[in-house]
C-alpha cells in the first residue's frame, strides 16, 4: 500500500523533525511530503538517518500561500506518484498518530473514499475566542446537516485520509486558504463516500494558534458563504 503523508507547515520547526522521524519509524514504506508554506526562517529537516532521506520530501514555497494551495500541490503529487492513500496531519503534534490506522481502515476495506478525523474535544469555552471558535464549528456543522444532511460534526479538522477517487475529484478545484469546509462541500456534492473516525485531539505540543479574532470571523463568513453557494446550487466553476 503506497501511503503519502502530507504535513503542511508554517513556522512549525520545533515539532517537525520529531513528527517526521516517528512517521518514518511507524510507516517505513510511506512517503512524507512536508510543505513549508513560507516559514521564516525556512524549515530545516535534519534527515540524519539514512533511511529517512529517500522517504521524506520537503518543498518550500517562497511566500505564505495558504493551506488551499499546499493541499492542491499535495494532491498533484499524490496523483502523479501513484499513491493509494493520502493522510493529512498537522505539524504541531495535535493529531494523534496512533489514530492513523483508524483513518486508513475504512479506506483499506473500501468502505469509504474519505475518512474524516472528527475531534471529540474540539469545542472549548475557556476564553471568548474559544467560545467564538466553538460557535463557528457548531454553526457550520448545523448548516452542513441542513444543506447536505451531513453527519459530520467537525468540519474544520485537519486530520483526514482519502483515496484516489476523492483526490481526483478535488484536485481540479481551486482550494481556498482554509479549505477543509470546501473539501467537505465538494465531497458531499459529488457523493463521495465519507466516513468519520472520532479522535481525541491532543494538546498542542509546539507553537500556538495563529488564528486571531478577525481570522475567526472571516473563517465563519467564508465557510457560510461556501455552503450557501452549494445550497443554492451555484457550484464554483
Amino acid at each position, binding site marked *: 500500500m503506497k501511503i503519502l503523508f502530507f504535513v503542511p507547515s508554517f513556522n512549525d520547526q520545533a515539532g517537525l523533525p520529531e513528527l517526521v522521524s516517528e512517521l518514518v519509524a511507524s510507516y517505513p514504506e510511506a512517503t512524507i511530503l512536508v510543505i513549508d508554506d513560507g516559514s521564516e526562517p525556512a524549515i530545516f529537516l535534519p534527515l540524519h538517518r539514512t533511511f529517512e532521506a529517500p522517504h521524506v520530501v520537503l*518543498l518550500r514555497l517562497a511566500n505564505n500561500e495558504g493551506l488551499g494551495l499546499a493541499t492542491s500541490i499535495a494532491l498533484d503529487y499524490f496523483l502523479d506518484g501513484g499513491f493509494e492513500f493520502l493522510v493529512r496531519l498537522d505539524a504541531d503534534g495535535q493529531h494523534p498518530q496512533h489514530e492513523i490506522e483508524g483513518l486508513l481502515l475504512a479506506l483499506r476495506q473500501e468502505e469509504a473514499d474519505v475518512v474524516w478525523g472528527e475531534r471529540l474535544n474540539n469545542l472549548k469555552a475557556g476564553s471568548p475566542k474559544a467560545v467564538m471558535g466553538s460557535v463557528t464549528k457548531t454553526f457550520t456543522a448545523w448548516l452542513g446537516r441542513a444543506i447536505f444532511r451531513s453527519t459530520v460534526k467537525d468540519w474544520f479538522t485537519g486530520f483526514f485520509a482519502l483515496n484516489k477517487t476523492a483526490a481526483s475529484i478535488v484536485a481540479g478545484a481551486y482550494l481556498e486558504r482554509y479549505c477543509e469546509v470546501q473539501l467537505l462541500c465538494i465531497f458531499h456534492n459529488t457523493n463521495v463516500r465519507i466516513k468519520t473516525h472520532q479522535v481525541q485531539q491532543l494538546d498542542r505540543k509546539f507553537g500556538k494558534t495563529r488564528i486571531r479574532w478577525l481570522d475567526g470571523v472571516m473563517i465563519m463568513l*467564508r465557510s457560510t458563504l461556501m455552503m450557501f453557494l452549494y445550497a443554492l446550487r451555484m457550484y464554483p466553476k
Partner: protein
Amino acid sequence: MIFKILFFMIFFWVLLRLVQQQLLGMDLASFTILLILCVLALSFSPYWVERIAAFLEFGTPSMAIVALVVAGLMTISVILSVMVSDLKRKHANLTRQLARLELKVKTPNLI
C-alpha cells in the same frame, strides 16, 4: 428596513455570482460582506452617520449622502477585489505548476 434587507440580499447574490464565476475570491467576498454588514449596522445609528458625514466634510450630514459615498466606495472595492482575485488565482496556478515540476525533479524515481 425592508429596503435594507433587500439591498443586502441583492448585494449578497451578486457576490455569490462573482464567487461562482471564480471572479472573486472567497476571502475577499467574505470581507466585503463583513463591510456591508457594518454599513447596514451603521445605518441604525444616526450619531455615527453624522460623525462620518462630518468627517467627510459634508455640509448637510444625511444618510443619503453617506450611503452614496459608501456605495461608490463599495463598488470600487468590489472591482478592485475582482482584479486582485484574478491575480491571486493566476499566481496560485503558477506556483502550483512550479511546485509540481520541483517535486518531479526532487523525486524522479517516485514520479
